[in-house]
């Protein structure tokens, strides 16, 4: 595991074969001075997916990631503490009235990005959310409709062989999921029982982990360490899906390569990127640059790339870069059951309800939420109890009820607000780059939504058979910071992810989102990446790419 952090693995014409211990696959490598078609910063849900799409469309691609290139079968121990290197742990400052916990809570680092440790819930957006302002009266419209993204949802689901139920109760009618659903574990069954008793729908969640073998990848063995890296390759992370595809199609992946700056030419176009690999700064020339570092690092890189022509940072003429950052509110409700739950088994979130995403009746707030069953492992759980204020003998005794505990956590929509944002602090990181300062505060509407969600979860969990209920508060996914839109005055990029200000600079990751919806974001990020890949290929065919 440790050599992956010290030494780049993808170089000299080869990259790790993630499916065979000790083996390598051939990888095309480019010279720094060779002008490639696309330099992509970040290889996660957005960047890794796009790298495959562009390479398969025939473009020359180099995709950079600041983190390592893991070999899941060999590197990933079944242990919480040992897997800390999966996260982005460079210093960041978090403030505002409701400061967000960063690091392992929402930020990955490494080839495959945060999908290497995500919990694989693969849900589509409620169709109305793409036009939430015009149809639902709040938030912002996307420059895209659900119908435009629908085929790409399907493409992303097919690429990840999502295992899901025969009929998912919410959203537009859809075709069957590619793989059959997983059996629901005990903590999911508590949610199911609760929902049935109060008379609302629930569903086994569609998950990006295999319910049957796929090529060299094994099906899920329900070991439950998903948040700490999947050692069987059942999890369809970008590392074992789009990244191998990208390499096979001729893309180069550069691991342990931190991009510090986008280089600009006198003509107002990007010329490539400066990146640090093995302690040396180097420059890669490229016709186009795509930033895909997620909702904090993407704005940070655009701001850190300020130059005389763009003194406030790239694509930031209207001052919007870094603004309208969103998270999902994540209040939790937990309780004790007479039955044994043992929620360490199987993926942490196996069942959920989107009832309050699709039913707006009786709400005293705008927006929606889902909630899911949970499966915390021991240190995670102990820290949750500690956050509740327990310590000493009380905490140690409470921990012995671990196997009888179940809980629900919300994925609650938050409003896009200008003052929730990423800025640069004066402090610098190990590369000499200014670190990000993140500011976040809930709105009044966000708070009403959280309260409503709490009440719903209390109802469901109690009906599910839990007693002695108590509450936690947390946040999860990040979104926004470089939002897409129809109008150059109030967005950073257009519907294709192209920045309004710089025609050969693009964004392709979670920072594109104009609103946050009430479900986990990565399937939508990957659908957007698939679409942006196709759009770029079409534009190239029509001669519109190099405008």
């Amino acid at each position, binding site marked *: 595991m440790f050599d992956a952090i010290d030494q780049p693995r993808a170089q000299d014409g080869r990259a790790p074969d993630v499916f065979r211990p000790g083996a390598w696959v051939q990888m095309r490598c480019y010279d720094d001075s060779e002008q490639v078609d696309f330099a992509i910063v970040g290889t996660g849900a957005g960047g890794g997916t796009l790298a495959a799409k562009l390479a398969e469309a025939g473009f020359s691609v180099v995709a950079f990631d600041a983190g390592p290139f893991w070999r899941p079968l060999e590197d990933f121990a079944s*242990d919480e503490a040992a897997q800390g290197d999966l996260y982005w742990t460079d210093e*960041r400052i978090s403030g505002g009235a409701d400061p967000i916990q960063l690091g392992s809570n929402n930020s990955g680092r490494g080839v495959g990005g945060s999908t290497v440790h995500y919990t694989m819930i693969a849900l589509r957006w409620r169709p109305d959310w793409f036009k939430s302002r015009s149809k639902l009266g709040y938030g912002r419209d996307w420059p895209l409709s659900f119908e435009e993204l629908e085929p790409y949802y399907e493409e992303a689901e097919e690429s990840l062989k999502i295992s899901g139920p025969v009929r998912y109760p919410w959203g537009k009618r859809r075709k069957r999921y590619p793989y059959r659903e997983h059996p629901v574990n005990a903590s999911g069954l508590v949610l199911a029982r609760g929902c049935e008793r109060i008379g609302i729908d629930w569903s086994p969640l569609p998950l990006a982990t295999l319910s049957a073998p796929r090529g060299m990848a094994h099906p899920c063995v329900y070991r439950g360490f998903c948040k700490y890296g999947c050692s069987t390759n059942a999890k369809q992370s970008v590392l074992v899906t789009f990244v191998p595809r990208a390499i096979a199609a001729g893309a180069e992946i550069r691991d342990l390569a931190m991009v510090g700056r986008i280089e600009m030419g006198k003509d107002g176009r990007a010329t490539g990127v400066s990146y640090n690999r093995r302690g040396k700064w180097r420059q890669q020339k490229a016709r186009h640059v795509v930033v895909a570092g997620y909702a904090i690092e993407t704005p940070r890189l655009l701001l850190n790339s300020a130059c005389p022509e763009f003194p406030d940072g790239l694509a930031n003429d209207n001052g919007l870069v870094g603004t309208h950052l969103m998270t999902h509110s994540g209040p939790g409700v937990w309780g004790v059951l007479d039955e044994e739950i043992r929620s360490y088994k199987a993926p942490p979130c196996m069942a959920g309800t989107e009832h309050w995403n699709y039913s707006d009746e009786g709400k005293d707030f705008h927006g929606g939420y889902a909630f899911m069953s949970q499966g915390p492992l021991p240190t995670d759980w102990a820290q949750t109890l500690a956050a509740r204020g327990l310590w000493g003998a009380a905490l140690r005794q409470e*921990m012995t009820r671990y196997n009888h505990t179940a809980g629900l956590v919300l994925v609650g929509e938050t409003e896009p607000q200008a003052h929730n944002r990423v800025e640069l602090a004066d402090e610098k990181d190990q590369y000499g780059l200014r670190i990000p300062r993140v500011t976040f505060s809930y709105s009044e509407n966000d708070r009403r939504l959280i309260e409503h969600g709490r009440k719903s979860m209390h109802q469901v969990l109690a009906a599910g058979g839990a007693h002695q209920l108590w509450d936690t508060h947390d946040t999860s996914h990040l979104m926004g910071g470089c939002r897409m839109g129809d109008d150059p005055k109030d967005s950073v990029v257009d519907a294709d992810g192209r920045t309004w200000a710089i025609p050969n600079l693009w964004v392709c990751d979670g920072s594109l989102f104009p609103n946050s919806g009430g479900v986990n974001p990565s399937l939508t990020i990957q659908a957007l990446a698939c679409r942006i890949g196709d759009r770029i290929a079409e534009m190239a065919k029509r001669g519109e790419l190099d405008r």
Partner: protein
Amino acid sequence: MSGFKTPYPDYDVLKKWDTPSWNEQTRAVIKRRLDEIPERRFLSEDEWTLLEAIAARLMPQPEREAPVPIVPWIDEKLAEDRRPGYRYVGMPPMREAWRQGLAGIAGEARERHGTDFRDLEPDAQDALLGAVQRGEIDGRQWGDLPADRFFSELLLKEIVAVYYSHPAAWSEIGFGGPASPRGYVRLGLDERDPWEAEEQHV
């Protein structure tokens, strides 16, 4: 605390060491955790003993002849400056926060009781830690460090994380422990695979 009871008195997760629930990379990691306890590198001797006294209250293990080591792993993390990836506005970087926070508790004990924290009675230690947790402290000892944040975000969080990373802790709560490649088969309510802990109903 002598009253601590586990529902899994006969379960030892380490007995699975040579079974299909453990793989090579996991054995390597846990072997190190059991056998290679790091030497002091970052904390001063005084800080180290103070932290041991604090850990003994926040994560008491009176029934164990050889308690699960906690301070060595926190010291290692500090020595290697392995940070959590963020700090809240008003908090100094991780290492400084620990230095300042420990000095705060030491100063608080001297101020209130005229003696070292480690020489206080357990009840007095608990009362003092409770006050720190609630932020009811004498500001002078702490500089600009928010004591309650230090307590909950660093001190307590790290101590419990180290303790529950140890196989002895997994055994006492009935956690299945490492589970690759075998994983689990029986997932439902009140279902248990033969290689999971059996609960003793008392």
